């Protein structure tokens, strides 16, 4: 125990403070660590004990709020569920999520991603409207299974950091928002598929994806956004076909 408690590990953290730094640069910190310490806990100990100016987002500590995504040794990860024991002996490189503008230190801009989510009509457009007094819509476990995995997305944006297409074209709607779109399109209570598919025919939509599949590898929640993208390619193609020669403006 005593020996283990004395173990230390070095972290290289990308720092950038807009008011004083011209360029992001790595700064080295050393922390004592224990078996069960997460990267988030290491960052917290640095902030509490060494340098209060280090900024990063976090809240739940249990891989559900989606706040703490960052690049850890080059891979997009949730800091709260990545453990130093798996990264030892280090040094460990910690940087903000790839493909997003840095606001400061490990904090990146989330607003554009949230706008994408909002743009895909992320709500039920009911097939049949009924008042609450009439009770719930029936949905069998099999009907639920058709969309449920896509509803588990925690909006952590790790898949965007892994996606080369998004890196090249920030307007690409991207895997997370596509998963959400499929979450509603696949829901037996919903009738909004048409409207949503209209959004993704264009060049920033589903056809931007070159099917690399890195998004699903990065996803900490097994949402499999690549599958959502694929389903939508099929749906988009099918939809396009059905519309025949109807002139559509897809831009």
């Amino acid at each position, binding site marked *: 125990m005593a020996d283990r408690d004395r173990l230390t590990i070095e972290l290289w953290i990308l720092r950038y403070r807009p008011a004083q730094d011209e360029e992001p640069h790595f700064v080295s910190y050393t922390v004592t660590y224990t078996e069960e310490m997460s990267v988030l806990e290491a960052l917290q100990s640095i902030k509490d004990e060494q340098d209060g100016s280090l900024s990063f987002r976090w809240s739940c500590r249990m891989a559900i709020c989606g706040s703490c995504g960052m690049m850890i040794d080059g891979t997009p990860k949730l800091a709260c569920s990545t453990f130093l024991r798996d990264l030892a002996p280090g040094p460990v490189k910690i940087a903000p999520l790839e493909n997003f503008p840095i606001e400061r230190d490990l904090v990146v801009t989330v607003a554009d991603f949230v706008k994408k989510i909002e743009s895909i009509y992320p709500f039920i457009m009911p097939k049949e409207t009924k008042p609450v007094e009439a009770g719930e819509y029936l949905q*069998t*476990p099999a009907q639920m299974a058709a*969309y449920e995995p896509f*509803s588990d997305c925690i909006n952590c944006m790790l898949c965007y950091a892994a996606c080369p297409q998004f890196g090249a074209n920030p307007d690409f709607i991207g895997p997370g928002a596509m998963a959400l779109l499929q979450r509603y399109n696949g829901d037996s209570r919903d009738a909004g598929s048409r409207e949503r598919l209209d959004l993704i025919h264009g060049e920033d939509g589903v056809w931007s994806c070159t099917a690399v599949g890195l998004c699903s590898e990065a996803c900490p929640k097994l949402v499999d956004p690549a599958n959502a993208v694929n389903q939508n390619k099929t749906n988009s193609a099918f939809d396009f076909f059905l519309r025949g020669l109807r002139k559509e403006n897809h831009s």
Partner: protein
Amino acid sequence: MDHFDTDILILGAGGAGLRAAIAAAEAAPDQRVALVSKVYPMRSHTVAAEGGSAGVVQAHDTLDDHFNDTVSGGDWLCEQDVVEYFVSHCTREMIQLEHWGCPWSRKPDGHVNVRAFGGMKIERTWFAADRSGFHILHTLFQTSTKYKSIERFDEYFCVDLLVENGRAQGAVLLCLATGEFCAITARAVVLATGGAGRVFRQNTNGGIVTGDGMALAFRHGVPLRDMEFVQYHPTCMPGSGVLFTEGCRGEGAFLLNKDGYRYLQDYGLGPAEPQPRNKYMELGPRDRLSQAFWQEERKGRTVTTPQGEAAVLLDLRHLGRKRIEERLPLICELARHFMGIDPVDTPIPVRPAVHYTMGGILVGIDTASPLPGLYAAGECSSIGIHGANRLGSNSLAELSVFGRVAGEQAAAFAKGAAAAEIPALLDRARAAEARALGLLNGKGGGERHSVLRKEMADSLEKGCGIYRLGDEMQQACDRLADLRHRYDGITIDDKSRAWNTDWISALELGYQLDVAQAMAHSAIARKESRGAHQRLDGYTQRDDANYLRHSLAHYRKGASPEISYSPVTITRSPPGQRAYGALGEQLEHARKEATHG
């Protein structure tokens, strides 16, 4: 300073704030709603709720049963008229969430399924696997984007309320990204800022759960009610405090001590049957289970984790892999990933951690606080349904039921209210800005706020834990007064403006200290044992003659809070003995005979 004018200002975009915003937008589409949150709405701590939300649906269940479970669960410190309203609106709200898309778990026939929960006599907890809060929050957030009248201020931190002429009329916000301030003026204000569990050391709460709204209202003269009642959840991860939902026990998990013995049978919760009956054994209420842990630890019958924490064992093995993975996927992930334990073949070491603040901002059944124009809903409020101990799955239901009420009431108030008194409000906003900048730029005496935060958490854990003693509570009060004093001399490392989380945590600590003082002083003043407030120093019994009353903590600038009391509304359930297990059943039987016989 930037200035926005709106009609209804909602501070907090967790379950309660989002539900309020949607209700306001639906009730008054012509009014503008400003929805403010210090994190993106889907990061709010509602996201972490696992187990589920209450609402009577089964044919053999009744609203009376839900009422009685809630009132006796709260050790009769509940506002019974409010509980009555609550239980009769839960189910409607759960169906509303279903209509908005919440993926509630289903039965094979397509109807919504319900599970058992601690202290609930009949299964009535709606669940979405073990990610119920997550799905409720995402459903509400995504649905809220439909309403054009809702304008969001994501990642804006509230530093003060704006009060003029005895009426709440807005708030001062700090934009996290830029570090610049803005004022929002409004005709009505809703607080939905969540709980305060982070004032304790081991807790199940996210970093953002720092009691901000409670302190804001408190500083403006609104009493905090029943703050001594802090819930310990019995099954949390040793060290971090991360929760293993009561849903585990709802599905049939056992709690074992180091000898593999189901110790709860020694604490009036038995008999121990292979399939725990509702309100027996593992399905007893949280306060009783946490207290039993404490006793087992004293008896040396707990295990010790590698990190040196005492723990008991949460045993799911007999449920089998399929059920565990299907019903409790998040629990599997947490145990496997965070602890390296597979619950399919190994029991999980667990211990109690602080989970929920029963008390909060005093509001009436209409969610209105005593300060005109100010409403509150969700965990930051004390509307009176939880009493001295909250039942699991009642608070997600509370968010929905009273979030809606708050949105509708605020909309109605805003419609009748005079326009905000803008010039005077902006003067106040500038003064609040100057105070916050004073904290940032002040030289201070060099002490770090992180040191104070740890001391605060330690002193509350010692003084206001599962069992309490007068002298230890006094020590907590004294240490908190000292910390309050030292807070004025802290130095912030970081003097910059954009994303200065050092500064934000210091501001939060200011809120936390106010809330901590309200808790400790309310606790020491209550000379009895009731629900989550258990004393070992001669006040071990419930004392209805003197303390069947709510405590009210009143803010005093530069001094400790003053405590007063107010009556409890009792409509139809006279205080009885609170019992679970076989005794509980006998007593309930007798009560029924007495009322019907």
